[in-house]
């Protein structure tokens, strides 16, 4: 037994060291830093609640918090809804070969930097951009899309859509086809099987896909900065602004800790929900 444990440990050691050095270490440091104070533009290592008191008592922090949660939540829901028909099509109406090619094509967006993809949206969404040019031909617009929440949302969706689509496709392709046939055999129309079989059978995958969309959007800085114009600011933008303004690293750390606690709670609840089995009574 002892030899076996050592053997297993040998393989686990790299990831344990990595996580300690680059995740748990910095995490502890960020939490510690949120209790430091800045005096005369110098960070003093102490244990005071100044930054916490200040940040928690300011409305703009809470406004940014609510706005970020709502926007990331909207992105998760929108991406899940928009991706679903395409994923359904890929999972059920195409051959395994077509599905493989489609998934490969969906990975290609990740080859280009997210920043580059965001900038290309810039040219599309701008006041004199491609989209307004097009609708202008039929006498509509121009619409202000850049520097609004619409721009931010489009940026978030650019980031998360391919991933959500891939996760949903794989989820549905792995649903036992015999369950769907059994439902049809029991009088369930093909459209109705979406509610009665596909959504419940693929619950884990759909929830995980939406969770990823939320996590990625929640922590994203690029979309709200370049397409949303930082107005209103999201929490990542608040962090950047706080560090720039008077070297307030402890206050930024407070925001970072709030974000991490939020993500932890949401991820934990989502995973509990996703993996919850039908209770036996």
């Amino acid at each position, binding site marked *: 037994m002892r030899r076996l444990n050592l053997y297993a440990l040998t393989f686990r050691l790299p990831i344990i060291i990595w996580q300690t050095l680059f995740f748990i270490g910095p995490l502890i440091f960020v939490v510690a830093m949120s209790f430091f104070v800045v005096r005369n533009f110098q960070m003093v290592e102490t244990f005071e609640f100044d930054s916490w008191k200040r940040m928690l008592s300011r409305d703009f922090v809470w406004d940014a918090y609510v706005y970020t949660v709502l926007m990331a939540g909207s992105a998760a829901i929108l991406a899940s809804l928009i991706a679903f028909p395409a994923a359904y099509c890929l999972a059920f109406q195409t051959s395994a070969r077509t599905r493989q090619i489609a998934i490969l094509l969906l990975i290609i967006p990740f080859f280009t930097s997210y920043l580059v993809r965001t900038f290309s949206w810039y040219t599309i969404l701008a006041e004199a951009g491609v989209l307004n040019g097009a609708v202008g031909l039929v006498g509509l617009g121009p619409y202000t899309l850049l520097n609004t929440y619409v721009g931010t949302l489009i940026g978030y969706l650019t980031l998360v859509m391919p991933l959500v689509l891939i996760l949903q496709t794989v989820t549905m392709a792995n649903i036992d086809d015999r369950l769907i046939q059994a439902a049809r*055999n029991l009088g369930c129309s093909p459209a109705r099987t979406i509610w*009665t079989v596909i959504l*419940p059978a693929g619950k884990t995958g759909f929830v995980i896909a939406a969770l990823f969309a939320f996590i990625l959007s929640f922590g994203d800085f690029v979309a709200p900065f370049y397409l949303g114009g930082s107005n209103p600011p999201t929490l990542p933008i608040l962090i950047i602004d706080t560090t720039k303004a008077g070297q307030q690293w402890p206050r930024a750390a407070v925001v970072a800790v709030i974000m991490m606690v939020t993500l932890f709670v949401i991820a934990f609840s989502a995973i509990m929900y996703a993996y919850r089995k039908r209770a036996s009574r």
Partner: protein
Amino acid sequence: MTEPLVSLDKVEKRFDDFVAVREANLEIGAGEFIAIMGPSGCGKTTTLRMLAGLDAPTSGEIRIAGKLMNEVAAHERDTPMVWQSLALFPFLNARENVEFGLKMRGIDSDEREKRAMNWLDRMEIAEFAERNVETLSGGQRQRVALARALVTEPKLLLLDEPLSALDAHLVIRMQGVLTKLQKELGITFVYVTHSQSEAFAMADRVVIMSKGEIAQVGTPREVYRAPRTRFVAEFVGRNNILPGSVTSSDADQVTVETGLGTFSVPGVATIGTKASIVVAGDMMQVGRGENSVDATVISEEFVGSIVTAFLEAADGTELKVQVQERALADLDLQPGSKVTLHWATQDGHLLLEET
């Protein structure tokens, strides 16, 4: 038979170049227990799926209760199926699984629960109604699957090798449950299986399929005692098949010259026809008699009270004889020993070669 409940008229099913079912003609009466039997890939499951509407026939007509079903979608039929994999919904508990068909028919939840509980009770698993189906045993899951299929009170129940995943002793018990249910409900069961014992134990008539074609339809006894094709003779029971050709013909008896000698067999055939004599393993006896052949014992198969001995005749023909286990010691059927087998002419069956 009066108006059949199910009729297949020249039904054919092709998957690209592969013919899964060819020119199938079959009539199934109301209240009949029909078993469709055959080796893997013989088209038995495809035939069942066509009855359920899960596969559409390429040509031919399928009628249920007189109505042409070719264009009727699966979910618009009342042909519930019990699946080999059971296909219970893992995200629903036992009762909700049973309620599924009723829910699809828009029956309100009180009535659904009442009828589902009634069926679970009948299946003797009411105490597990609220249990996650994944926590139930194989036999319990089987009963949930049966209740789910029967709760809508269909006229026709389709069963696709439903017992193949169960332990041997459970198979026997479930056979009893199924036979009793079918008698009580008086509905038609179409039961697909590769197991001869299941088919013979339960069915009124068996349909034997081979390579997409229906080889023979008849009562278990007919199929067992009077196989119509060589395939059926080989597939059913433990038959000795002696191929040859007809050399003389009487009123109701012919003589067939085979590699092991010339024997008489009841039947009618013209001289010169290629034909085989089929003698069931349990009709073969050790010793000398009316029709005798010499053979060497190769091996024996012990399945309890009956032992099948496999022998080889001088020309290499494989012979089988089934004897009672308790009689075995007196017969000297040890591997390697030379024995003489015989059978009564009346016990032989004439099999004409299909052209």
